[in-house]
């Protein structure tokens, strides 16, 4: 009988870490730019194309997840924790998809040019509506905070598993291949 994989496939791990860096950068840029006079323009000029890149990559990631399902949960993980873990993963996928889309939509509703680089800009995906802009602008902020707290929860869980339970859950996602010989408990 084949034993199930213990690690995510390499492409999944690559996507996870690349997107983790992008998303954290994005949350940092987002919260900084709205509070900055001097750096506002420079940051917003990065925020737009980076958001679109995340939108594209999350679609790739979702397709990849269908093609390469995650390895099974650890045996000793209780059902409730498994459910929470799956739901929070789903929430993060959803936020990575919805946040850029709301950003694109809000700029569309304001008919604000959505410049990616130079003269390259995106088309409007919503009709011009000041009130819709205001609602989506607020939604963008609320979802971003929600994302930050979801990230904190995810990060806390990993720290707890790694430092307290020491069950090696992080090895499922580390960028390098986990080699049997490097594991002292192996055998």
């Amino acid at each position, binding site marked *: 009988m084949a*034993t199930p994989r213990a690690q995510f496939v390499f492409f999944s791990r690559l996507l996870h870490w690349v997107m983790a860096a992008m998303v954290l950068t994005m949350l940092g840029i987002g*919260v*900084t730019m709205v509070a900055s*006079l*001097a750096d*506002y323009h420079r940051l917003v000029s990065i925020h737009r194309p980076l958001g679109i890149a995340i939108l594209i990559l999350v679609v790739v990631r979702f397709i990849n997840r269908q093609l390469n399902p995650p390895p099974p949960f650890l045996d000793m993980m209780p059902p409730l924790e498994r459910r929470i873990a799956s739901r929070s993963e789903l929430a993060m996928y959803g936020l990575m998809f919805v946040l850029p889309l709301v950003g694109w939509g809000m700029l569309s509703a304001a008919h604000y040019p959505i410049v990616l680089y130079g003269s390259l800009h995106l088309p409007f995906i919503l009709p011009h509506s000041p009130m819709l*802009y205001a609602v989506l*602008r607020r939604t963008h902020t609320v979802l971003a905070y929600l994302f930050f707290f979801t990230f904190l929860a995810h990060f806390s869980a990993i720290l707890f598993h790694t430092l307290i339970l020491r069950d090696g859950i992080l090895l499922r996602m580390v960028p390098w291949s986990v080699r049997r010989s490097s594991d002292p408990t*192996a055998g």
Partner: protein
Amino acid sequence: MSMHLEASAGTRRRPLGIASTLVRLAVIGGVLLVVAGGFAYLGGWLTPRNVTPGRFTDAFQQVNGVHPGFRRNHAKGIGVSGFFESNGNGLRVSKAVVFQPRRVPVLGRFSLSGGQPYAADVASDVRGLGLQFSLPDGELWRTAMINLPVFPFRTPEAFYEQLLASKPDPATGKPDPAVLKAFIDRHPETAQVLSFLKTQPISSGFDNTTFHGLNAFWFVDASGRATPVRWMLTPLQPFAPAQEGAEAQDKNYLFDGLIAQMRRQPLRWRLVLILGRPGDSTRDATVAWPADREQLDAGTVTLDGVAAEDVSPATDINFDPLVLPAGITPSDDPLLSARSAVYSRSFTRREGETKQPSALTSADVRKGQ
């Protein structure tokens, strides 16, 4: 073989001692605190004295009160429309599509400075003109100009400080002169600009006002060469000095005058590019460039339509000076990013509010025509 992998990821180790568990939990707490604290720091929550776009916008509201639906500054205004006819000269310094010899549609808004949407027109008020050029490739160029050739404040922080200093004292209903004087003493550049502005003649109306882009920008040509540029709109309508007594007769006399003039004929301005030379400061809007800098006539702006804010599409445009086409890029002037940030905040607030009728309504526009 894969059983070994299973063992590495999936075996719970011997339980930790109490002390060890507490230390590890503290480490986890510390890491989370650093992450959350870093986030809070970036968001400005730990530095309540720093000027942020939100606090800047709040300052306008503190000084003027909150007028829902209106811009927090340049609150009183009227929409206009027309076109820009480029003569192609601008291509010498910028590859921007707007400078190709052709006609592009323009939307605009004339305004008076201050956050009071119903204030009476005063000849010496700072006059504003926001313009949006819609380029055939879908790009937009927005600019917010005023009638001052130089700006009284070098930094956004100075502007903010002056704004708060000009807040009316609840006791007298007027700004405290001592506070204003203390500000001027700290900012000699502001004193210099204000005394220079006193020597500048004030024109009779919007139609014969020269509008200045204020900040410097980099214009980039097709070969990638960058030139520091400031621009202005010089009226083709002849200059006439502001008339004594006009203010007393009609509290909207500047706007009503504009409506009446536009009924008679379209109003036209030349778009003049002022080409800086190496060494000219691009980051100090309080200082004009030497008078001998080359001026390039890039074409003519014609405004032939006027509409009150309840119907004009210009009402919902944020004349963010950093909405630029490829071929024009921001300079290092700190005012530019700050203007973009604060305009955006003001825009976000007013777009979510129920709009009130403006001082100038469609009925006023019809009456004038």
